[in-house]
């Protein structure tokens, strides 16, 4: 059932729904509804993964129901059909994207993208977190970066200082989007290095050996 932004926000505030953001991860990281979970829709295994996730988390039959957030009616409908097919009930859908959400005066969590050139010019203003796996640091690491693999971030979050600005880095900008969105949800001021180390290294910016 397509609902208005206000109606969906109400449902979220009352704990009635868990919102799955079906847009590509990059769009989610750039700006998303507070509390929404990134679940980019794809035709390959997505609905089954959501079904398992719903079973394993509180969002089960007795918990909150699933709502879908997207920016395209055709894609939201395709995702809803896939969930119907997998036996996951969808309580509400919203297909007007972040634009429609903000037009209703509702808040978003945003992670700005940072280009490699912007970062290298202002490196002293940022604390860089490299979320790649240890073997990947061999290709070079941005000088003074904190090295925290993505999987370790949730339990190492207390090492971070909420008064700093963090630039999150990975190989191509994908994992860092997820990490940045995770930190932004928890109130940190973060940006994502667009294109990751592939762009940093390709631009010939300074590195230290990892």
């Amino acid at each position, binding site marked *: 059932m397509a609902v208005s932004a206000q109606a969906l926000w109400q449902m979220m505030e009352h704990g009635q729904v868990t919102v799955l953001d079906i*847009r590509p991860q*990059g*769009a989610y990281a750039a700006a998303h509804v507070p509390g929404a979970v990134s679940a980019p829709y794809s035709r390959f295994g997505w609905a089954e993964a959501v079904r398992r996730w719903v079973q394993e988390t509180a969002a089960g039959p007795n918990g909150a129901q699933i709502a879908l957030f997207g*920016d*395209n009616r055709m894609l939201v409908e395709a995702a809803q059909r896939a969930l119907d097919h997998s036996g996951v009930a969808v309580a509400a859908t919203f297909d007007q994207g972040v634009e429609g959400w903000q037009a209703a005066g509702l808040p978003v969590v945003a992670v700005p993208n940072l280009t490699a050139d912007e970062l290298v010019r202002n490196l002293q203003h940022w604390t860089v977190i490299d979320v790649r796996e240890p073997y990947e640091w061999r290709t070079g690491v941005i000088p003074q970066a904190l090295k925290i693999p993505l999987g370790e971030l949730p339990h190492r979050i207390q090492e971070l200082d909420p008064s700093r600005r963090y630039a999150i880095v990975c190989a191509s900008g994908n994992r860092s989007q997820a990490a940045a969105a995770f930190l932004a949800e928890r109130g940190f001021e973060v940006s994502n290095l*667009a*294109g990751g180390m592939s*762009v940093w290294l390709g631009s010939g910016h300074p590195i230290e050996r990892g």
Partner: protein
Amino acid sequence: MIWTPFYDAVHGCSSYLVGDEVSGLGVVVDPLAEVGAEEYLLTAQEAGLRVAWVVETHVHADHRSAGRELAEAAGIAVSFHHRAPVSYPVHPLRDGQRLELGDVVLEVWETPGHTEDSLSLLVYDRRRAEEPWGVLTGDSLFVGDVGRPDLAVSSPEAAVAAASAQFDSVRRLLALPEYVAVHPAHFGASACGGIFLSRTPHSTIGFERRHNRLARIEDRQAFVDEVLRHLKPPPEAARSIRAENLGLAVKAGRSA
């Protein structure tokens, strides 16, 4: 750069999703009704892209387009050559205009000949180089052939003028660096080319400069004569399909 061709080998039609994985923006060129708007949207979504542009290299007369449906679903207008005679609101493109997806850029070239509203699109991946990587040649330059000049005109004289325009467009394209990849809108079975149209969907400027029997003709009159001499009959239902793509008719026969 994200580069996903969609080939309809039965009708010899090619369409393309081109995008920038960093910006998350994509463009779909010449979407086919045979493939369907939803397929393009889903493929873009799965590649992490939002469809920010839908471009037609010209008003097609051989197959039905998914351009309007796709653009509508994406909340945008279809982009056409500014002279395209379509009956619905479009985003007009002009020579030299650049569609910026981020580091990936498409540069518009007006390459009339097949139709007056034919475009080619140079593709740049500036993360790798400032030089063009490839060119979407629409129905201007084909692999082994050139686009026929007679489908959108109503007299033999107009076909001669269109063939002459095609000569200039093909010359301009062949002046690109030889390593530039050539990705036309048709191959194989398509009726938009002539008897030399290859079943291979892509090539390079250098290969076509050397081995394309029509494109390598350097004399205008010889080119015009040769192109017109090799014309096949127009595709079945060409008029009704073109009318539908122009937005003038609701229904056309099966694409030829």
